[in-house]
C-alpha cells in the first residue's frame, strides 16, 4: 500500500466519522422538530434561524454541567460504560459501503473504509458489544433502577439479536455473500433485496428498533417505571455520550438497513446517469441517494417513536421469542424453497 492510499483511507475514515457525528448531532434536533410537527407544535426555534444551533447549545450545556460520580459507584466502570457505548456506536460505520468506487485519473478510490468478507458478522459483533456499555453503566451506578434498566437492555438485545440473525441468514441465502460491499453491488439498479425478502426486512427492521432501544422498545430507559433507566446516575457529558450513542446507533442501523435491503447507493437508472455525468459525479450521486435512504429511515424511526406507545415487558418478550423467531425461521424455509424451485 502506498502512502497516498493510506492518506486517502485516513481521510475517508475522518470524513465518515465526522459525518456520523454531525448526523447524530442533528438527529437530536430533527427528533425534537419532528416530534413537534407530529404534535402540531413548532419545536425549538430560538437558537439561530429555525433553532438550527440548538444541538450546539445542548452540547455546550452538557459540557458545562457538573460531573457527578455517586459515592457508591464503581469509579472505573462508571467511566468505562459511556465510553464503550459511544465507541461501539462509532466503529460500526467501518464496513458500510458509502458509494461506488470513485475513479479520479488512474486512481480508484473505494468509498468504503474496509470491505472485509465477513462484514455482516462484524456489524453483529459490534452491535452485541454495544450492550456492554449499557450493562456496565447500569451495574457501576450501584442503583437499583439503573441495574433494572441495564438488565432489561441486555435481555432485550439478546432476544432480538437472535431473530435479527435469523432474518439475515435468509438474506445470505439470496445474496450468497457476507461482504457488505458485494451485497450492495449485487443490488445494482432496482434489484433491491427488499423485493426478494420483504418479510426478512420487516423482521430485521423490528429488531433494529429493539437493538437501538427506540420506541416501542425503549424499556431500558422508560422514565415512568425506571426513573431514567441505565443512565439514571449519569450527568454531564457522560450522559451526553449515552444519548449520543443512541443517535449514532440509529444512523448506523439505518445505513445497514439501507445497504442490506434497500439497495444501498443503487437507484433505478444509475447507469444512464453515470454514463452522462462521468465516473466522479456518478458515484457521488449514489452516495447522496444512500444518504437520502438513511434519512428516510431515521425519519421513520422518529415517526414510529411519536406514534406507538411502549410495549409491556412480557409483550416485548412474547413478540421476540414467540412471534419473530418462528417467523424468521419460516422465512428461511420459504426462501430455501423458492431458491430450490424457482432458480
Amino acid at each position, binding site marked *: 500500500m502506498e502512502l497516498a492510499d493510506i492518506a486517502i483511507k485516513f481521510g475517508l475514515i475522518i470524513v465518515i466519522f465526522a459525518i456520523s457525528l454531525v448526523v447524530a448531532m442533528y438527529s437530536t434536533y430533527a427528533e425534537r422538530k*419532528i416530534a*413537534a*410537527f*407530529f*404534535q*402540531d*407544535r*413548532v419545536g425549538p*426555534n430560538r437558537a439561530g434561524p429555525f433553532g438550527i444551533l440548538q444541538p450546539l447549545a445542548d452540547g455546550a450545556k452538557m459540557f458545562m454541567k457538573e460531573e457527578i460520580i455517586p459515592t457508591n459507584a464503581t469509579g472505573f466502570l462508571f467511566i468505562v460504560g459511556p465510553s464503550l457505548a459511544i465507541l461501539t456506536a462509532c466503529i460500526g460505520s467501518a464496513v458500510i459501503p458509502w458509494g461506488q468506487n470513485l475513479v479520479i485519473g488512474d486512481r480508484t478510490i473505494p468509498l468504503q473504509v474496509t470491505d472485509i468478507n465477513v462484514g455482516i458478522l462484524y456489524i453483529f459483533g459490534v452491535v452485541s458489544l454495544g450492550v456492554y456499555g449499557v450493562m456496565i453503566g447500569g451495574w457501576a451506578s450501584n442503583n437499583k433502577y439503573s441495574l433494572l434498566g441495564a438488565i432489561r437492555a441486555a435481555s432485550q438485545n439478546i432476544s432480538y439479536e437472535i431473530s435479527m440473525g435469523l432474518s439475515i441468514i435468509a438474506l445470505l441465502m439470496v445474496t450468497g455473500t457476507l461482504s457488505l460491499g458485494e451485497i450492495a453491488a449485487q443490488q445494482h439498479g432496482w434489484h433491491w433485496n427488499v423485493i426478494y425478502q420483504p418479510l426478512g426486512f420487516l423482521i430485521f427492521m423490528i429488531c433494529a428498533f429493539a437493538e437501538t432501544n427506540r420506541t416501542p422498545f425503549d424499556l431500558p430507559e422508560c422514565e415512568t417505571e425506571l426513573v431514567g433507566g441505565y443512565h439514571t446516575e449519569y450527568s454531564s457529558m457522560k450522559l451526553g455520550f449515552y444519548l449520543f450513542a443512541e443517535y449514532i446507533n440509529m444512523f448506523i442501523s439505518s445505513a445497514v438497513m439501507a445497504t442490506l435491503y434497500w439497495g444501498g447507493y443503487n437507484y433505478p437508472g444509475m447507469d444512464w446517469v453515470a454514463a452522462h455525468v462521468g465516473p466522479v459525479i456518478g458515484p457521488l450521486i449514489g452516495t447522496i441517494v444512500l444518504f437520502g435512504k438513511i434519512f428516510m429511515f431515521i425519519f421513520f424511526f422518529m*415517526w*414510529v417513536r*411519536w*406514534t*406507538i406507545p411502549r410495549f409491556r415487558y412480557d409483550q416485548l418478550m412474547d413478540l421476540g421469542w414467540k412471534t419473530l423467531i418462528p417467523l424468521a425461521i419460516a422465512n428461511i424455509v420459504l426462501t430455501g424453497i423458492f431458491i430450490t424451485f424457482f432458480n
Partner: protein
Amino acid sequence: MESLSNKKKQLEIKPLNFWERAYLPAIVKGLSITLKHFFKKPVTIKYPEEKREFSENYRGMHSLKRDEQGRERCTACGLCALSCPAEAITMTAAERQKGEEHLYREEKYAAVYEINMLRCIFCGLCEEACPKEAIYLDGDIIPSDYLRKDFIYGKDKLVESPLNQ
C-alpha cells in the same frame, strides 16, 4: 340479576381476529394518523413576537388615566386600595401646590401610587371602586422579571403618558 333501570347494556367482547392480532395494520393506521398531523399547521402562538387577540373586557396591566387636559385624575381617595381583595395597592396622598394645576385635577393627588403585581389578582374591583374613573385595567400582560421588588409598579409605569406626546 335483573337490571332495575333497564339501562344496563351487555357488552360482547369479541376475540381479536387475525389482522387485529397481527398488530401491523393498526400500526400503519396509527402512522397515517400521525402523518396527517405532521402536515397540519402548528397551533402555537410564538408569544413575545405574536400575541393572541385579547377580548374586549380583558383585564391586563393597570393604567392611571389623565383627563382631557392631560391632568392626573387620581385624587388619592384610597377607595381602590380599600376595595382591593388582595391588598395590592398602596398610596401616599399629597396636597396640590400653587402652579401645579395643570398636573393634577383636584387639590389632592397621589404622590406615591404602587401596585404589587405579584399580589394583584386582576379582578377589576379597583376600577369599579374608583369614583374619578382614574384607574383602568386596559393594559398588556405583566412581563416576567427576576426580582420581587421589580414587580412593585410605581407611578412611572402606571400613569398614562401625557396627551401631547
